[in-house]
């Protein structure tokens, strides 16, 4: 590993870019923003290969004193959970700039500056290893996002912007108090790794769990804290929706897996049923709401509620399948839903409507567009071969070990997802178009192709070859599990499903489980996976 401060560069570069867009010529504002995000992407890519997948430790560590009187330090680092999320962010940001190329004409400089500030802050959230630093990045996101919705948003943007802002701010009220309480309980440090190594009394854990829960559940958003999401999505400009859906929501689930699980393991186990129930409600309720929507963005927004329900469900299963599936699904949802929002943005640029009724039958005039729309929709409903299938399947497999009933209910979400997505595709792609809309529908140009293509490739890349991603998070997830389920609990907390461990080499992404099998000392490695799991529940 080199001593190069990768993460600092990744965070600082967009922030400098935000200043740069104010000084360049009018004509090169877009290009500057694009180059900054692309350079950031290029810098982030080597991390994928430099990352040591065999280690669950934090890597690319950076540390410097920041506010010594409070022992707050500038600590950054990545592990197998944050690495994919950082890369997802750097991949999505150039696309956000591209989709805004012509969609945003007013106050372009400020718009690009806001996007770039967001990028810096989002990477900061995922890379921060100091709790106060994390909180700073976490909160610093709010104002740019507020402006993004409020200044460049739709007709009802003022309401949506303030609702988004107040919901998330109110959610994180207790987070800061919890951080301060941990500081005094955990030996006067804000070091996340240090705080994660300690044990706290259960009463305190309970209290802290709900403080964390309020902050993270609003962000995810979990039912019943989700009501800000459809408003924010509908009013936000396309780039805002993409950032919101793909990255911001992940900050909530990332919070759970980074803080709630390792720091408050007893409380996490105690409140698993609560989280599971809320997740399943979110899965089914979100899907039902999506069925009823006539606005494309609202439909995808509610589908996000449903899909994020899977993620929270998987996280609280405390087994390899559940958590790896959840982290994987965080990335997948970012790619797939990001793609869907990009698609909606493109059609909106043409017809100036997001209503399904106004965008019917685009296949004939826009064949390339239709291909991408169908790919993203199929990925979103979890078709085998696409990324979401792997993630959702692993989550359901993990859930199956915990409760068959829960799995059954959660699976309803997948059926419903197929319903609302296929119905949407049926109308938008294959309906009979109204004649007056036809002339507006020109097919994708090169810029738009370049925007969608990377996501389309990633969908299949992850769907067919999930192992590079899974292997990088494996060691980290094992550590999280070891933390949340102490050795004494492991045997009992993972009841045997079918009795005998079997080899799962012929599973089609079996290599994951090979890795699990490869460590016989680990009781989780003996999960009873059989051929049955190849079936869709």
């Amino acid at each position, binding site marked *: 590993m080199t001593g190069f401060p990768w993460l600092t560069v990744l965070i600082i570069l967009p922030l400098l870019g935000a200043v740069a867009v104010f000084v360049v010529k009018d004509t090169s504002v877009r290009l500057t923003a694009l180059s900054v995000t692309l350079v950031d992407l290029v810098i982030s890519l080597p991390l994928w290969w430099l990352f040591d997948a065999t280690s669950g430790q934090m890597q690319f560590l950076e540390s410097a004193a*920041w*506010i*010594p*009187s*409070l022992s707050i330090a500038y600590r950054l680092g990545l592990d197998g959970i944050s690495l994919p999320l950082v890369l997802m962010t750097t991949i999505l940001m150039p696309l956000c700039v591209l989709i805004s190329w012509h969609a945003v004409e007013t106050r372009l400089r*400020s718009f690009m500056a806001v996007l770039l500030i967001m990028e810096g802050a989002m990477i900061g959230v995922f890379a921060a290893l100091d709790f*106060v630093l994390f*909180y*700073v990045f976490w*909160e*610093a996101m*709010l*104002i740019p996002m*507020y*402006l993004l919705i*409020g*200044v460049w948003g739709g007709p009802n*943007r*003022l309401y949506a*912007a*303030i609702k988004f*802002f*107040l919901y998330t*701010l*109110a959610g994180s*009220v*207790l987070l*800061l*108090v919890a951080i*301060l*309480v941990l*500081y*005094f309980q955990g030996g006067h440090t804000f070091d996340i790794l240090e705080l994660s190594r300690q044990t706290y009394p259960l009463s305190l854990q309970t209290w802290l769990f709900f403080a964390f829960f309020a902050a993270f559940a609003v962000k995810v958003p979990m039912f019943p804290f989700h009501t800000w999401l459809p408003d924010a999505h509908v009013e936000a400009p396309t780039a805002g929706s993409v950032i919101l859906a793909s990255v911001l929501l992940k900050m909530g689930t990332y919070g759970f897996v980074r803080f709630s699980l390792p720091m408050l393991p007893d409380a996490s186990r105690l409140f698993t049923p609560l989280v599971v129930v809320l997740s399943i409600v979110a899965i089914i309720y979100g899907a039902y709401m999506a069925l009823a929507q006539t606005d494309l963005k609202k439909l995808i927004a509610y589908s996000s509620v449903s899909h994020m329900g899977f993620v929270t469900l998987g996280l609280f299963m405390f087994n390899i399948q559940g958590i790896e599936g959840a982290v994987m699904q965080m990335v997948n949802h970012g790619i797939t839903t990001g793609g869907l929002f990009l698609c909606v943005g493109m059609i909106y640029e043409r017809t100036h409507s997001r209503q399904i009724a106004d965008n019917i039958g685009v296949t004939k005039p826009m064949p390339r567009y239709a291909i991408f729309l169908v790919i993203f929709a199929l990925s979103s409903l979890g078709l085998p071969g696409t990324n979401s299938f792997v993630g959702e399947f692993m989550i359901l497999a993990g859930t199956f070990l915990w409760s068959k009933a829960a799995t059954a209910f959660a699976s309803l979400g997948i059926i419903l997802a197929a319903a609302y997505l296929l119905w949407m595709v049926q109308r938008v792609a294959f309906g009979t178009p109204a004649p007056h809309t036809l002339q507006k529908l020109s097919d994708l140009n090169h810029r738009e192709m370049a925007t969608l293509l990377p996501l389309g490739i990633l969908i299949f890349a992850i769907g067919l070859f999930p192992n590079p991603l899974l292997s990088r998070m494996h060691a980290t997830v094992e550590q999280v599990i070891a933390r949340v389920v102490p050795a004494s609990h492991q045997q009992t907390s993972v009841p045997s499903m079918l009795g005998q461990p079997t080899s799962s080499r012929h599973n089609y992404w079996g290599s994951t489980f090979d890795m699990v099998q490869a460590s016989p000392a680990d009781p989780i490695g003996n999960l009873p996976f059989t051929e049955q799991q190849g079936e869709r529940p």
Partner: protein
Amino acid sequence: MTFSAADLFLVLPELLVITAACVVLVLDPVLRTSDKDSLVWLSLATLAVCMGLTASQMGTSSSIFSGLVVIDTYGVFWKLLLYFVTGLTILLSYSYLREERLYFGEYYGFILLSLCGMMVMVSAADLLTIYLGTELMSLSLYVMTGLKRKEPRSLEASAKYFVLGAFSSGILLYGISLLYGATGSTRLPAIASAIATQGFTDPLLLFSTILLAVGFGFKLAVVPFHMWTPDVYQGAPTSVTAFMAVASKTASFGAFLRVFVEGLNGVKADWSAIFLLLCLATLIVGNIVALVQTNIKRMLAYSSIAHAGYALIGVVAAGRLEHSSGLASVLLYIALYTFMTFGAFAIVAMLRKGTLEGEEIEDFTGLAKRHPLPALLMLVFMVSLAGIPPTAGFIGKLYVFRSAVEAGMAWLAAIALLFAAISAYYYLRIVMVMYMREPIDGTDPAPRLVMSPTLSIVLACAVAGVVIFGIYPNPLVNLALQAVLTLK
């Protein structure tokens, strides 16, 4: 009473300020109108010299004039802050008075007199000396509030301020006299040792503590002694409002902390409980009432009330903690509050609607289109006032909440944070109006911001403070920690 020439050297900054004030007052009628700018430069030069002198007193600790006054790092901290604020006020007033067509050379004289009063307040170790400082500060402020003598609102504000101020001074004096009765002295160290030796049983002691809390409560504008604040802040010329909201509050906190921590340390459980009630009331009323204001000066008045509430959290914590980190958080909070509040008032002062002040929140509509940079600065100030990182306001809140949690009052921090989230609504309303509403065409005359070089300097200083201390607060933190160490 002993007296030595060496003592005079230690109060040289005070002497210089009062001399400059007299010179300004005398020169004003003599000078031609075109030469009156020189009074501004004279005042600023005085401040610069004083700043140097005071900074050189850092680390000293000497009790002079038989213990009436102490020169210590604690006083130095507040004085440096006061010079800074006064300098900004003078720069702002230079543009503001011109815009308002108020040509009074005395204005600068009164600012300096008021400053002198504040300097006495923060370095006095005797209750009567503190009282003298308070009166000098307040009397100058009463006059400055009524400076727009053709405007009924300004006069009303002045009268109201005077009556309530005199009333509160009376209560303060009453408390001082009772405390003298209970302990036999007005010197803070003597009071402290008297309380330590005779115990806390005397009900007179508790009663005088309450009266002192009430008296200072008026000066700090904490609920329920805040009634004067909105009217006075709204009626006074905006530059004076800024001065009051920042400097007067700073000095009052300086004196108030010294009295309670140094003099009444023995009854800190009692005053901690009193201030806990005041703190909760202040947080609730300040933040809730600010939500419904339509006039920005009134809104900022309630905001300044609310911020006194946050600072009081540190005071409450200080009353329960053995060491001084709680106190340091108060100093830090007030210092950081200075930058953001002054910056906000500076922009309000220079927003014009024709020849009048644009002081309705609606007048900010579309400011981002017409004046992008000042609008951005206003955004930074509002975000900082709301306590959102990475700004100074967050660092201030982090430190006071940390003290609260350390003192075992995580619930208080949670309540305060809840109200901080509520406060975000009214601060962001300004941002919303500036950025998300189109300028209303046809309103005649359209509000505009009058930029001037001095205003630019003021804004640059304020925003630099907000951003730099928001990201790297260490210098200020260390200064605050050093300052509180000198309090016994």
